[in-house]
Structures are given as C-alpha cells and as structure tokens.
C-alpha cells in the first residue's frame, strides 16, 4: 500500500507535550504512552510468570519433592498460567495495538483516550488483588488456570481470584471497544477495510472475540463465587448442580481465548515476513478471510477440551470434525507466508528470525493440535505432557516469539534508536534453542503417559524431564538478555531513519523515528 502523507516530519507541535514525572504515566491519555505502559507491564508479568516456571521446572528436574510441597507446586502452576495469559500475552498485544493501530490507520489517537487510561490501570489493580493472596492464610489459587469446579469452589481465597478476573475482564472489554471504535471510525481517508494493514485486521477480529467471550468468563466466575459463598449449587452435584456445565461455560470462553492470543501474532508475522522478503504479502485478502473463518470456527470447537467428560457420541464426532476444519484456514495462512518468502529478496534481521521461527514452530504446535483433534487418540493424549508441549509450542514460539519479533521490528520507531543487531540475533538463537530443548521432550513424556499438573512423577520420565528443565533455565536466562537489549535501545543506539527497514511499507513508517508524541493531526490520504 502506498500513501500520500502531508509533511509531518518536523512539524512544529502546537500541542503541549507530555507531563513531567510520574503524573505523565498515571494520567496519560496518549496512545503511545499507554502502549508503552502495557508493554512494560507485560514484560514484568513475563518475568514473574517466568520465575514461577523456573520454580516448576526446578521441582521437576528430578522425581521426588525437593523444593516445595504439592500445594505450593499447584499454586505455582496456576499462577504461572494466569500471569502468562492475562498478564503477559494479552497485555502485550494490547500494548502493540495501542502503539500501532493509530499509526497504521493514520489516526491521531485511540477513539476513547480516557477509557484507554482506565483499561490500563485496571490491570495492575487486578494483579495486585490476585497476588495479595500470596500473603494470606491458604495462599494463592492452586486449582489450575482452568479453575474447574468443584475443586475451585472449596478453595481458600477464591473470592480474590474471582474479583481479579472480573477486573481483568472489564479492562479487556473496554480495550476492545476502543479498538473497534477506533478502527471503524478513524481510518485515514481512502483506507478501505480491505486496504487495512493485517495487524489492524487481526486486532479488529480479536476485539470482537474478546467482547463476545469475556462476559462468558465473568459468568463462570460469578457462578463460582455464588457456589463458594452464597449457597447456590450451579456446579455442585449433591445440590442438583452440574460440574460439567462449568467446563462448557469455561471452554466457551477458553477456546476463543486461545485465538485471542494468536490472531494478533498472525498480523505481526505477515508484516515482518513481507518487509524482510521485500515483497508484498501473498494473498492479503485470503489472509483476512482465513482469520475471519478461524474466529467463527473458534466458537464451535470448545468441547475438544472435554472429550473425556463423557459426552454423547454425536457431540464427540461434531467437535472432532469442527476442530479438524480449523486446520484448513490455518494451513492457508502458513502457505501464504511461505509463498511470500518464495522469490523474495530476503535478509535475516532479528525480527525476521523470530518470525520464521514462529512460522515453523507454530506449525509444529498446529500439527500436535491436529493430532489432539483425533478424539480416540486424544483419549491417550488428554491431560498429559503432550498437551503441555502442544500449547507451549503455540504460545511460546507462537505468541511470545511474535511479540518479541514485533518489539525488535517497531522498537526503532518507538525509541528512535536501532537495537544492537548482534545481540538481537544472539537472543534469538538462545531462545530458539531453549524453547525446543524445553518443550520438545515433553511430547515424549506425554506420549509415554506422564500426566500434567504433577508435582512428582514415575522414574521412567526422569531423563527427559531433566533435559526439559535444563532447556527451561536456558530460555529463562536468555530473556534477561532481551531486557538488557531493550533497555539499552531506549537510551542509546544508532539513530533510526523514519523508514527504518528498506522493505517496510505502511503509514507508521512515514512519520519520524521516534514517532512524535502526536502524529496524524491531519489525516494522511491513502491511495
């Protein structure tokens, strides 16, 4: 897409700049500031959730209980999952949305800047509530991030968990409304929907998914709260309730949720692969249709997480077929990325390395997903480490690699400085090795029958668990390098040009680097 832009470079700002000190961050309504807040919040969550993962892997390094009792272990697993999903991946994508959507559609800011501030500040509030349980008698939640009733209904401090989830949900819903209103109303003249950059498209779809399913999650936690404290029996069989109902409600939220965590990654990957192949994306509109079909299908596959709860045969068959269907649009996306690379003129800077690793390793996670869809085989795979391997392949070298790729790709635009390319590549190769050493062996122990959420395990799983733990420590440590690279780039580095990457295309590359505090006060025209 090419754009005609009125000259904004060096325009003398008639707005006042940012406030000074802490008040700038507390009261800001600027999409770039809020994006930055989200991104740093998510980085902190990754480090905390990662520290929990290190604790888990240290305990699993050998059979037996060495470092903690199983209550603590369950708490670490649960909090690791919750922090990574609700504190790490989702806020990272919201941060990217805040920074990039206005820049990519030529809008001066998000449509509702004050609500934007509120949606961010709700997040630390929610996590403070959730983490405060660590200091209470009974401690943190230990029922898994899926909080299946009736285990969760009798758990200490569950009210704090419920309240935290409600606040996170409110934050997500507000963020989504903001994204949708911005995209629908504030595109630069001439930017029709089909001309919209794919990251914006991916977020438009994600935002609709969020608005559809966050209230369902809120319903689930509310019923849980009622059961725990107000004497209802939604999920209590002895009172006439139905524990399986909980799982239906949870996964009706939960499956779309996993696409919420991957669609923006699809958008990011499309931009980066096209930039470094110096070639327009193959099949722009088929990418859009593929994302829309994935989003629609994601509402009719939830019970593939419940193949073993004893559903009737027709339901099992329906959910197996529906799940297999998702492989088709997903395949189309992977083929499109490959076709974009084909006959390109390719260089391998850090964002490109992460994006290609994304394509390959996400696809491996997709392969194991296809295997999990085969219901009779899922009776063997379900709730074993095979599943842990599967979802980490789609989440870590999937969602998380795409976030890292995005950070390297847009960091020069945000800070005005180039990151250190050598260090970036080192970070990539360490992460790449770490991820595979950690998670590939988990396929093996899973197939051999090691159940997930186990603080301790039988002796035949010992070797591969040791390997997996070593990989995890490598991966964990490498992320400190990432922190170092980012911080260093914020303060110093080779100055970036507005274009930054010679193959980059899109409105964000037409403004200065770093992007001025206010951009596109006058909308650009898109041909």
């Amino acid at each position, binding site marked *: 897409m090419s754009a005609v832009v009125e000259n904004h470079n060096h325009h003398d700002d008639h707005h006042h700049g940012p406030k000074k000190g802490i008040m700038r961050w507390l009261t800001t309504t600027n999409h770039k500031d809020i994006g930055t807040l989200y991104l740093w919040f998510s980085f902190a969550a990754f480090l905390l959730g990662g520290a929990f993962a290190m604790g888990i892997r240290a305990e699993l390094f*050998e*059979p*037996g209980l*060495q470092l903690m*009792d199983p*209550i603590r272990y369950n708490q670490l697993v649960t909090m690791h999952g919750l922090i990574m999903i609700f504190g790490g991946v989702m806020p990272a994508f919201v941060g990217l949305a805040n920074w990039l959507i206005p820049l990519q559609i030529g809008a001066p800011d998000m449509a509702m800047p004050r609500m934007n501030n509120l949606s961010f500040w709700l997040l630390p509030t929610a996590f403070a509530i959730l983490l405060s349980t660590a200091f*209470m008698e*009974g401690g943190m939640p230990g*029922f898994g991030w899926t909080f*299946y009733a009736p*285990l969760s209904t*009798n758990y*200490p401090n569950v009210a704090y968990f419920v309240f935290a989830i409600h606040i996170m949900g409110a934050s997500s819903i507000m963020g989504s409304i903001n994204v949708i209103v911005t995209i629908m109303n504030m595109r630069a003249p001439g930017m029709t929907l089909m001309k919209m950059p794919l990251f914006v498209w991916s977020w438009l779809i994600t935002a609709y998914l969020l608005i559809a399913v966050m209230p369902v999650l809120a319903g689930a936690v509310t019923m849980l709260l009622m059961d725990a404290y107000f004497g209802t029996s939604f999920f209590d069989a002895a009172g006439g309730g139905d*524990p*399986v109902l909980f799982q239906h409600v949870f996964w009706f939220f939960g499956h779309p949720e996993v696409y919420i965590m991957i669609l923006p990654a699809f958008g990011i990957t499309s931009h980066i692969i096209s930039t470094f192949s110096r*070639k327009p994306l*193959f*099949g*722009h509109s*088929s990418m859009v249709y593929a994302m829309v079909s994935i989003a629609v299908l994601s509402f009719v596959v939830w019970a593939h997480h419940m193949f*073993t*709860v*004893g559903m009737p*045969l027709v339901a*099992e*068959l329906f959910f*197996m077929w529906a799940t*297999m269907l998702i*492989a*088709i649009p997903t*395949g*189309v996306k*992977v083929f499109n990325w*490959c076709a974009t*690379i*084909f*006959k*390109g*003129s*390719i*260089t391998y800077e850090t964002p490109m390395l992460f994006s*290609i690793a994304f394509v390959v390793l996400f696809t491996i996670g997709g*392969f194991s997903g296809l*295997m999990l869809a*085969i219901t*009779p*085989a899922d*009776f*063997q795979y379900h*709730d074993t480490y095979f599943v842990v391997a599967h979802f980490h392949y789609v989440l870590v070298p999937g969602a998380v690699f795409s976030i890292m790729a995005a950070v390297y790709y847009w960091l020069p635009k945000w800070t005005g400085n180039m990151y250190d390319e050598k260090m970036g590549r080192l970070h990539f190769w360490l992460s790449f090795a770490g991820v595979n050493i950690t998670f590939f062996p988990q396929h*093996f122990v899973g197939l*051999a*029958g090691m*159940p997930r959420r186990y*603080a*301790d*395990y*039988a002796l035949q799983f010992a*070797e*591969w668990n040791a390997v997996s733990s070593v990989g995890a420590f490598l991966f964990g440590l490498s992320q400190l390098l990432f922190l170092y690279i980012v911080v260093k780039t914020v303060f110093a580095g080779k100055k970036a040009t507005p274009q930054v990457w010679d193959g980059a295309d899109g409105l964000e590359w037409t403004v200065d680097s770093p992007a001025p505090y206010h951009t596109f006060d006058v909308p650009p025209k898109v041909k």
Partner: protein
Amino acid sequence: MAYMKNKLWALILYPISLFMSADWLDVNMPVGVTDISKEVFGLHMAIFFVVVAIGVIVFGVLFWSMWKYRRSNNKKPATFTENHTVEILWTIIPTLILIAMAVPASITLKKIYDHEAEEGGIDIQVVGWQWKWQYKYLDEQVGNKPLSFFSNLTTPPDQYEFNRVEKTENYLLEVDEPVVIPVDTPVRFLITSNDVIHSWYMSDFAVKQDAIPGFINVAKTKVNVPGIYRGNCTELCGERHAYMPIVVKAVTQEEYQEWLQQKRDLAEQIAYLTEKEWTSEELLATGEEIYETRCAACHQTNGAGIAGFYPALAGSDVVMNDKAKQIEILMEGIRGSQMQSFAEQLNEVEMASVITFTRLAWGNERSGDGEIVIPKDIVEYKETNL
C-alpha cells in the same frame, strides 16, 4: 586444571549417557493390550506420519526458498501477490487429507462408544476420592454388600519427601490393593467421583474417563494379555493429584475366581475380629499405621494440619472431648469440605483404632478425656444409624 577438565567432560558425557540409557526409547504411546488400544495406536501413528509428511514438504519448500532467495543471491524480488491455482490446491488437498483421517477416527470412536453390557462381562464401579480409588464389584456380593475396597498409594513418604531413601522400581505407581480383572472378558468400568473431578487413565487400555461427582461414565475394555498395568489420575484434584495411581492386575478366569474367594474369606475374619476385646495398646499400634496412610496427607503426621486447608487434630476439642461427634465425623464426613466419609474405607477395627490413636497421640491424652474407642462402638453406631 585437571579438575576443570573433568567437569567439562562430565558436562559433555552427561547428555550422551542420557541417550545411551535404556529408557530413552520410552518416547512413544504404548501399543497397549486391548484391541481398541491397538487401533488407537494405529490412528496415532497414521496422523503422526501425515503431519510429518506435510512438515517435510512445507518446511522443505520454506527452507529451500530461504536459502535460494537470500538477498545476496537474489537482488530483485518478484511482485506477485496471488495465484489462484495454488490457492485452490492448498485448500482442497488438506481438506481431502483431513477427511481421510476423520473417517477411520470416527469408526474407532464408534467402537469405543459401544457401552452395552455383554454376556459374561463384569461391571466394576470406580469411585475417585481425594486421593485414592475405590473399586466396587457390582456383581459380587460379600455378606450383603457388593465387594468393595480402596486402592491407596504404598510408596512411603521417605521416598518422595526430599528423597531420603532410594526410590524403588514402581515409585508412585504402586498400591496396596490393585483392581483385579479377568482377561478375555468384557469389563465395564462405571466411573464416578465422591468429591472433586478425577480422571481414570490406563494407557495400556487406551482408556481415559473423567470421574465426575453426580455422573457415571462408562469405559468398556477387554484385556488380551495377563499382567500388571499401571496408570494415573489425570484431572487436577488437589494437592495429592500425583499420588493416586491406578494398578490393574489382569489374570486368568481361574485366578480371578480364587481371588474372589479369598476376598469373601477375609470379610468373615473381620466380622469375627470386631467381637474380640481390644486393649488400647493393640488399637494404638494399628491406629498409627492407618493414620499415616489415610489421614496424614491432610492432617499431617504431627497432627498439626495445614493452616487454611486442614484443621489440626492435635489439641482439637472434638478429638479430645467429644467421642460421639468424632465417630460421626469419621463415618459421615463433613459435607461441603474435603473431610470425607471413611465408613466404607475402614472396617470397624481400623476405624476404632485410628480414632483411638488421634485421641491419645500428640498430648491429646493428657489434655482431653483420654477415652478410647473400641470396634464395638463402631458396630453400635452402624446399627443405630442405619
């Protein structure tokens, strides 16, 4: 220096020794010992080879293009953005592959879902408890009740807590009483739960069914090979989720009948034991053992409980001063809490012993009334509360 070198060698040799050790081949799903498990294994390998083939082709093309079209080799990128032929092909071909996979999977699934009782088959009810399995043989009467027993982990805490002693071969996969089934006989497991959700997973039979309170899920199996098979609980059910293994012993019909007879004889002996006069020393000795295996997981060996989860029994008013109340708690459980009913788990002697033990241990004897509970008390409770 030499020392450093040794360390370096150890670092290199360690991974190698891992690969050479006998277990590393343990990387795939077991074929199992039932017709269904073999079919499931077949499906697993089929879908595995399909995805490997797709992977080889797609990644092959990808890596080749990455190499061929690197900038130093190709200065001028192409500009095409569509090609309808390939796009149609890469939609249709995967669809056909998926159909080819879905058909056999659906056929196997239909077989697994044949839950009908069969002539000569047996029904075993499986009940998940925090953190043990109960097995009830619905067709076998012992006295006036179906044959029933609990299957508890026998790996001693010394093996898993801080690895105080060497772990033995079946670490965490051994129980006091395995569930015994005859080979070549259709067995229906009717799976449910007494508290939270558990899941009964026996990889060698390709069976995994959730044990859900208020529901009965059916898993039918027919084992072809006698042997001892080990499995696990696969639904997070609280802290000792990893400590409630499943052991199935598949035996010949004759051995199965013999085992049933033994079970009936045992029941008679216990009826006799309740009549006997018991001293507090005898009760204490049995009681301590029962406490360690059945109660210590929650109330802890020292009786102090875990704050926020499990109340202390040491110094508890009920335990020290209210005999009747304590019997009731043990027999009925406390509704809506993790304190379960032990009425079916312990016989009269065991029940009286463990209550006596809690009333005398940890200084409770001195601070409380110090009275003991004898098996007859339990028999009486059962008679009046029936």
